[in-house]
Each structure stands twice: as C-alpha cells, then as structure tokens.
C-alpha cells in the first residue's frame, strides 16, 4: 500500500455516511439543479411573454393537483415507515410499506396521465395553446411535469427492484434508505412544481 493510500485508509470520512449514500446525495444535488434550471427558464418565459395564459381552473385541474399532492406526500410517509421497519429488521413490514409506496406512486402517475390526456383532448400540445396565448405555456408545462413524471415512474420501478432484492436478502436496509432519499427528493420537487406551475397559473 502506498503512503497516500494508507493515509486515506486511516483517515475517517468527513461525512461519516456510506459511499452509496453520499453518491445519492450528489445525484440529488445535480438533479435539483436540473429542476431549478427548468423552473427558472419557465419563470423567465412567463415574464417575457405578456400574452401568457392561465389554463387551470379550480375544478378539475387544481382539485386534481391537490389530490396528487396528497398522494405523493402520503407516499413519502409510507417510505419513511418502510425505512424505519427495514432498519429495525422487520423485513415483512418494510416490504408492505414499500408496496404501499409503489401503489401511491402509481396512483400519482395515473392521475397525472389522466390530466395530460384531458389537456391534450382540449387541444394542448407542446407548442400549441388552444386558449390563443403563448404556445410556450404547453411547452413549459409538459416538459417540467413530464420530467417529474419520469422521475416518479423510475422511482416506482427502482422501489420494486429494491423490494425484491431486500426480500431475497441481496439488498440491505441501507439500500431501502437510499431509495427513500430519492423518493423524498421526487416529492420535494413536486412541492415547487405544484405552486409554481399549477397555482400560479390558476384562473
């Protein structure tokens, strides 16, 4: 072992967390910057276009958004329960809560897709605004919510893979916790998407 490698091995980690946990935090920071850039770009376009239209009325759009928010927030709570049970060694209970999280994530994605379908039926497209204002309303809405939806769907798949591995003892409670960090981040992004994209565009 070289002198440098020996020093690195003897030096305690400044964060005192497993490497994979630090890795997911690095990913979260990078992904937060991506969503931040998209939301800043959306804000820029909204201000620069005086003919910006507000597509959302309370019923059904905002009401649907409130239900979606409730579902996603609840899925964070079930994920916390899954992590706590996993660390306590209660595998069966942890798996049940992971299943509940997947169910809520799928419900969120279903509600979101239903909303997309109804908006597309009204004539909304990436670059088409049926209300006659700036076509960028559709572009920003579909791209921001689409990227978030992609994260939700990926999250549901990842939780499924981790749950299977955890059941077969290939993965540990740390893996469940790290997946939870990703899932809470997806929830956290929605905490900005809902007010800025939906509520700020309510008629």
């Amino acid at each position: 072992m070289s002198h440098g490698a020996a020093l690195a091995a003897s030096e305690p980690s400044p964060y005192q967390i497993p490497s994979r946990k630090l890795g997911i935090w690095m990913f979260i920071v990078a992904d937060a910057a991506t969503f931040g850039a998209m939301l800043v770009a959306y804000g820029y376009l909204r201000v620069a276009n005086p003919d910006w239209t507000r597509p959302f009325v309370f019923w059904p759009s905002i009401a649907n958004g409130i239900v979606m928010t409730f579902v996603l927030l609840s899925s964070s709570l079930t994920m916390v329960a899954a992590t706590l049970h996993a660390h306590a060694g209660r595998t069966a209970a942890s798996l049940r809560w992971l299943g509940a999280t997947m169910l809520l994530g799928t419900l969120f994605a279903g509600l979101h897709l239903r909303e997309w379908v109804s908006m597309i039926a009204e004539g909304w497209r990436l670059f088409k605004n049926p209300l006659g204002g700036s076509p960028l309303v559709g572009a920003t809405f579909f791209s921001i919510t689409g990227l978030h939806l992609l994260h939700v769907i990926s999250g549901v798949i990842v939780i499924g893979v981790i749950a299977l591995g955890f059941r077969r003892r290939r993965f540990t409670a740390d893996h469940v916790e790290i997946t939870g960090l990703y899932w809470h981040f997806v929830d956290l992004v929605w905490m900005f998407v809902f007010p800025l994209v939906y509520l700020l565009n309510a008629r």
Partner: protein
Amino acid sequence: MKRYVLVWAGLLAIVLAEVLVTFARPATLVLLALLLALAVVEAALGLLYFMHLRYERRILLWSLVPTLVIVFVLMGHFFPDAFRLMHQRAP
C-alpha cells in the same frame, strides 16, 4: 413515527395554505413571493425530517445546501433579461 406523521400533516397544511392564498387573488408578484416562501418551508421540512438531514453530521448539510443556493442565485442573474424582452415586444 409520530414525529413523521406530524411533519406530513404540517406539509398538508402548508399545501392547503398555498391553495387558499392563491384563490384570495393577491397581485401576481405577491402570490409568487408567498408561494415560494411556503415551498421553501416545505422543502426544509422534507430535507430535515423525511430525508434525515437533521440527524446527519452538520457538515453534510453545510456542503449541500449552500452549494444549491449559490447555483439558484447564479441562475437568477439571467432574470432581468426577461423584463427587457417583455418591454421590447411590439404593442
């Protein structure tokens, strides 16, 4: 678990407050400021409790959060250009 249920209830209450504020119809800029402030409180609750940042070593929080804040502030530097574009449009 009780603590997490309380945080969850608090987050739901903030979402409700956001909706109520929106339909009170304040000026757009005031609404934006209020919604952003409430969203930051939600994010802080999520980070500290659901993501356990409160229970990690402080250096992790101080490495991650200021970095992101600086990135967002730098992004904001482009924003005044949006006002320039708005005023440049033909009537």
